[in-house]
C-alpha cells in the first residue's frame, strides 16, 4: 500500500495511541503537551456540540473537544475515568476528551499506510494514515480536525 507523503520511509516516529468512541486513534507525540484527568468544564454559548466548553489549564483558557463526537462516533458521557489530552495545534492549545490513552508506538515511516480516501462523517481528510497494531490498526489523526470549527478556518 502507498505511504502518505508527509513521512519518508526511514523516519522514526512516535505516536500516542488513544481510544475514542471505541476506536483506536493516534497522535504524534510531539503535539501532545500533557494528559489530565477529566474535570468539569465551563460550557460555552453557541458552541458546536463537540465543543464541551473551556477549562483552566494553569491560567490559560483552553477549549475541550469531545473527540468521539467530533469524529461522528456519538457523544461521550464524560466521567472522571475519562482523560483529556492537551494537544498543541499550530499556536493553539486544545484539550481532547477521549476514553483512554493506551501506549506509545514507535514506528518507522514505512510502517504507515495511506488512509483510504473516505472521511469520518463530515470531516474529510481527518485521518492521515494507518498503523497496524496488535489488536488491529490505529488511525493517525490530522491535527486540523482537533480544533473547534470556530478555529479551523483560520488554522
Amino acid at each position, binding site marked *: 500500500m502507498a505511504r502518505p507523503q508527509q513521512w519518508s520511509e526511514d523516519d522514526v516516529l512516535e505516536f500516542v495511541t488513544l481510544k475514542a468512541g471505541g476506536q483506536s486513534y493516534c497522535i504524534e507525540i510531539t503535539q501532545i503537551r500533557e494528559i489530565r484527568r477529566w474535570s468539569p*468544564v465551563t460550557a*460555552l454559548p453557541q458552541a458546536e456540540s463537540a*465543543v464541551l466548553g473551556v477549562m483552566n489549564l494553569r491560567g*490559560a483558557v483552553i477549549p475541550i473537544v469531545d473527540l468521539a463526537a467530533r469524529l461522528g462516533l456519538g457523544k461521550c458521557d464524560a466521567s472522571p475515568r475519562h482523560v483529556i489530552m492537551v494537544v498543541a495545534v499550530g499556536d493553539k492549545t486544545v484539550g481532547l476528551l477521549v476514553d483512554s490513552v493506551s501506549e506509545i508506538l514507535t514506528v518507522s515511516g514505512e510502517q504507515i499506510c495511506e488512509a483510504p480516501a473516505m472521511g469520518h462523517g463530515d470531516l474529510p481528510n481527518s485521518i492521515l494514515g494507518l498503523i497496524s497494531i496488535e489488536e488491529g490498526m490505529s488511525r493517525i489523526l490530522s491535527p486540523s480536525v482537533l480544533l473547534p470549527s470556530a478555529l479551523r478556518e483560520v488554522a
Partner: protein
Amino acid sequence: MSRDDLKATFFAECEDLLEQLSEGSQNMIAGSADDDTVNAIFRAVHSIKGAAGAFGLENLVTFAHCFETVLDRVRSGELVPDTDALHTILRSSDMLADLVELAQADSTEIPEAMPAILDKLNELSGTAAEDAGDAAADMDFFGFQPLVLDPLGEEGDEHTAPAQAGETCFRIRLTASSDLFRNGHDPVLLFSELAMLGHLETRCDLSALPEADAFDPERCYLNWDLTLRGQVTEDAVRDVFMFLEDLCQIEAVDDPGADGAEPVPDLSPPSVAEETAPPQVQFRAAAPRETPPAPIELALGAETRAPVSAETRAPVAAEPVNPAKGAAKAASPVPQTTLRVDPERVDRLINTVGELIINQAVIAQKLQETGLASNSDIMSDLDDYQYLARELQEGVMAIRAQPVKPLFQRMQRIVREAADKLGKEVVLVAEGEGTEIDKTLVERLAEPLTHMIRNAVDHGIESAEKRIAAGKPVMGTIRLSAAHRSGDVLIEIADDGAGLNRKRILEIAVSKGLVPADAKLSEPEIDNLLFMAGFSTAEKVTNLSGRGVGMDVVKTAITMLGGKVTISSRPGEGTLFSISLPLTLAVMDGMVIHAAGQTLVAPLSSVLETIRPRPQDIVPYGREGRLLSIRGTYVPIVHLGNLLGFTCGDEISSENILILIRSERSGHVALAVDEISDQRQVVVKSLEGNYGVIEGISAATILGDGRIALIIDTDAILTLAGDLGRDVALIEEMQHGKTAAMV
C-alpha cells in the same frame, strides 16, 4: 547586539528625540523658547541624523541635514525666524517624524510634502544650491555600511599591500577629547569609513589610560594614529572627520612608499607630554607601546561599545551630566530617569500577578469552606495577603501605564498635516496630557484617534469663508482631552465646527439602505448612524478621510479595547466625541452572577443597579416579552440563560434577580438571572487565543475554585436579543426623555 537590535534601540530613542523636537518646536511657535530650546532641538535633529546615517536611511539623513542647517543658523543667531520660518520648522519636525515612521516601516517612500519643505528649508538656510550639494555629499558620507568591524579585521591581511602609483598617504592623529563619547561619536564607525576609502592602518595609543580606580567609563582615553593610503583626496578624509574637526589632526605625506608601521611623528601635545613623562603605574607600563594590530581592535570594541551605548541617550540629559554646566543650569528641570524594559517582561509579570490574585482567591475560598471563624488569625493574615496582592498588582499595572502625551503630540501633527492639505486653519488644544493609561491602550488608540481627528478637521471644521459667515474666528479649534473618571479614562475630541448635519446623515443612511425611508429616529439615533458600517458622509472622497474606512471602524476598534464611544452635536456649535476606556485591559471589576446553572461575570461598569422585582413590576409585553416597570418607565427584560442558549424558554418571574445594564447602543435592559454571588476584581483571560469569538461573551476569567467563568459582553447581549432590539427602540420612543432622566 545584532543590527536589528541596534535599529530597534535607534527607533526607541528616536521616539524620545522626536518628542523633544515636537515640544521644542511648539515652544518656539508659542514664543516661549530660549537658547536651550533651540539647542535641544538642534541636538535632537543632529542625533537622529547621525544614527540614521549609520543605518543608511538616506531620506532621513538628507532631510535632517537641511533641517539641521537651518537650526544651526537659528542657534548661532544668523537667522531670526519669523512666523513663516517657525511654521517651516514646525512642519519640518513633523516631516522628520513621518520619515522616522517610514523608515521604521522599512519604506523608502518620499512623502509628497517633503520636496516643498526641503525647498523652504534651503531658502531659510540661504545657501539653497550649495547646500543641496552638501546634503548629497553628506548622504554619501553616511552611506557606508554601519558598524562594520570587518574592514579593520581584513586590514591585517592587506597589511603588506604594496603602495601603487597615484596613491596618497595620510597620517591622522586622532586625539580623543573627553567629549568624544558624550557627543555620540564612535571611532569604530570612523575607521570603517576610512577603510572604505583606501588601505588603513590603525595604531592605538593607550598611554593616556589611567589607573583602574581613576577610570571614568564615559571618557575616552584612547588616541589613535591612522595611516591611510589610497587614491584619496584630502577633502574626502576631512569629510569623514567633519564632526570631529577639533579632535584630530590630518596630515598628507608626500612619500607614498612611507612605511605605515613606522612610528608616526608625534604632533599632539598630550602625547608629547606622555613621551617625556616616566612610566607611572604598573598597569600602564605593562601595556606595550607598540601594540600589535589584533589586540587594538579588541580594545576598540571593548572600550568603545559600552560607553557609546550608554551615551546615545545622553543628548536627553547632556547638560546635567556635565557637573559644571549642570550647576549653572540649576533652574532647568532635572530630566526624569526612565527605564527601558521589554514589554514582554512586564506582561509576564502581570500574568503572574494575575495568577497570584486567582491563587489568593482559591485559598480564601478553601479556608472559608473549612468553616474557620472570620475573626481568626489566619483569616486576618489572609486579608493582609489579599491587600498585598492587590498592591502588587496595582504596582505592576502602573509600570505599563504611560502618559497620553506622545499620542496627543502625534495628533498635533495629524491636525497640522490635515489642515495644511485642506487649506484650513485649525489648532489642536490638548488637555490632560499627563493622564496615564495602559501602554497597549495608548498604542491601540493611535489609529482610531487619528481617524477621528482627521475627520474633525475634514468634516467638523468648516472652511474659512463659512466660519467668517457664521461669525466664528477663522481659526478652528479642536479640543483633545484626557481625564480619569471613576475607574475609566475619558478621552474627548471636541471641534467648534458646524456640528452634524442630521438631515444629510439621515438622507445618506436612507439612500444607502441602512435605515428604512420612513424610519423615525431620535437625534441621538441619527448621530449614531455615523457608526454604522458602510456609512461615509463625505460628499466627495478626499484623500484624508472618506477612504471607505468609516466611523464604524473607529467604533469597532474602541469596542475591542473594552471602551465605548459616544457622539453628541449641536448645530453650529460643534461635535463632541467621547471615548471612555478601562484603565487596563487585564483586570476589571465584575459582578459574579448565576444563570441557568452557569457562573458568569457581568462587567460592573455597565451594571446600573440590581433589582429584586415585585410580581407587579413585571409586565407582559407581546407573547413572550416582559417589561420591567421601574420608576415610571419600562425597560425590557432579557432572560440571560435563554439568550445564551443554556436554557430554552424559561419564564421570567419575580424569583429572578434583575440586573439593569446600560448599553451605549440601545439604552437600558434588565437581565434576568438566578443569583448574584459576589462582586470582585477579575483577571481577564482572552478566549480568542485558543478558541474564537463568541457572540455575547467578551472574555473569560478564573474563579476562586479554579473554574472558568465567562464574562458577558453587555452590548453584544443586546444585539443577540435581535427582535428585542427593535422593541427597545420602540420603548425608547414611547418613553423618550424619561429613560434618559433615569440615568
